């Protein structure tokens, strides 16, 4: 697919004897919300790590907007418009929500070798930061300190920070992790609002959310892509049902066979 925004071409990553990414091929078209699902240990976070540049693949290439970014460092990928949220909340705990997001804005507002002016008084940093907080529904909590916010609010703040870097594409690593049903529903609504404007690669365990949001779904098992397609096709795919959706059933049957 020549017009894909993100192309993952044969990416392989090994940790000792474990193949965490096994010749992964995946295209994400501009504007689509592409979900990656898979059981624990399927290599989802390893894949995200290679997309953001924290891990480098042993083989294969990663292309973003037609340019090879396989060897670019983390901060340069962010500069190109590839933003991520973290599975385990990774915020600046000693700062307020607004300060957190302002930093993300600052990262994309030219260099930071500016030593004199009070950064907290700069409207060109504060205004976009407030806008990003509003977009995820945290506008009223701008001055709250991270340490005093709930887990659900942390997840929203994660998203706001990714948005504040004015990305072309969002990589969301389990944004619903640890959320209650009500908070999850709110997050789904927020993502639904974003998907019209942004290309999103979503890694998520919450199947309800995935099938509600995704335009396409890729299923990863033991680092390998076993299926990729529209939600209806994935739901109907026999291999997926056996390897993932019906995992419980298979285990039970196997257990019974031994008994």
């Amino acid at each position: 697919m020549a017009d894909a925004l993100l192309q993952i071409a044969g990416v392989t990553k090994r940790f000792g004897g474990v193949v965490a990414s096994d010749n992964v091929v995946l295209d994400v078209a501009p504007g689509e919300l592409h979900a990656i699902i898979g059981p624990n240990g399927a290599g989802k976070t390893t894949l995200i790590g290679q997309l953001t540049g924290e891990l480098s693949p042993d083989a294969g290439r990663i292309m973003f907007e037609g340019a090879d970014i396989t060897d670019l460092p983390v901060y340069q990928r962010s500069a190109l418009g590839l933003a991520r949220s973290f599975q385990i909340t990774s915020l600046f705990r000693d700062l307020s929500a607004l300060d957190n997001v302002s930093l993300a804005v600052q990262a994309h507002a030219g260099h930071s070798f500016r030593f004199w002016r009070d950064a907290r008084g700069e409207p060109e940093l504060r205004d976009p930061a407030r806008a990003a907080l509003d977009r995820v529904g945290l506008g009223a909590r701008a001055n709250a300190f991270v340490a005093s916010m709930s887990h659900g609010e942390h997840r929203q703040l994660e998203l706001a920070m990714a948005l504040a870097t004015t990305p072309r594409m969002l990589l969301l690593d389990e944004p619903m992790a640890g959320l209650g049903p009500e908070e999850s529903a709110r997050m789904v609504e927020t993502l639904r609002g974003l998907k019209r404007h942004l290309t999103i690669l979503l890694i998520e365990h919450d199947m309800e959310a995935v099938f509600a949001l995704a335009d396409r779904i890729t299923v990863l098992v033991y680092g390998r892509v076993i299926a990729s397609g529209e939600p209806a096709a994935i739901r109907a795919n026999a291999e997926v049902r056996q390897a993932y959706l019906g995992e419980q059933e298979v285990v039970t049957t196997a257990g019974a066979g031994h008994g």
Partner: protein
Amino acid sequence: MKLTLRNAMVAAVVVILALLPLYASLTGNTFMMTLFTRIIILAIAAVSLNLIMGFGGMVSFGHAAYLGIGGYVVGILAKEGIDAGLVQWPLALLFSGLFALGVGALSLRTRGVYFIMITLAFTQVIYYVANGLDRYGGDDGLTIQKRSEFGGFINLSNRTFFYYLCLALLLAAVYLVWRMVNSRFGRVIQGARSNDRRMQAIGFPTFRYKLACFVIAGVLCGLSGVLLANHTNFISPALMHWTRSGDLIVMAVLGGMGTVFGPVLGAVALLVLEEALPHLIGFVSSIVTGKEVAAAKEYWQLILGPMLLLVVLYARGGIDGLIASARRG
């Protein structure tokens, strides 16, 4: 600026420092002048260390290196007959900055205890280099015959003038650090201390900012070394002994790491205690035994040590933290 207990305390310390020469000249107490000039100079070094350690999370255990470099550039040039301050001072700051650039470029690739060890190792290297400089006194050190010359209009040998010059430079340094930590640059430095991985993920090349911060701190501490050499008219490898680096860390921690004025309070507290505790012990021993026990005075560190322990265990914010929380009570 709001009138808080902390601001009042800072103002009080500044006023006391500003009026000290008056007191000294009225009482003829030149020792006070010498002591407080030294305190002010080392406070500049502590402010500089606090910039990287308190705000940047870079615990340098070799910060005395820049005291040494600043001092040795002045001393060596003086020995070679170049006593122009406009040559000595810029060169001293330049070499301090270059050394920081080299040390930082290598050590900032490591973290935690490795960073501490590498900064210590570099300082030990130049400590031994200085020991080997036979032409410049080796381990005996070198007396500087003449303080830095700035034409006719500035005379560093004037005790009062030199004191106020050091005080002005200290206040300028504190103001500079205050502006810097609140600027975009400072936000990046503190963000990298808090969560370096996230900083890179949102698009900051943190290494270059940390390195720049490390060099700025090195230059500032180099200035402290220049002043110290001019103050004592003497340089020796002891300037950069590792215990000196430790003293600077103690000043920053005692005063309050990561606060702009804390290290100044820490420097004053530590160095005044160093002077006062032996006298205090002598005084107490004379009450208890009827005559002063001179030998007991040597054990003043037995009192200072537990005091530091208490600060570290129960007052993480140092003296500054105690003052700031006194109102909340």
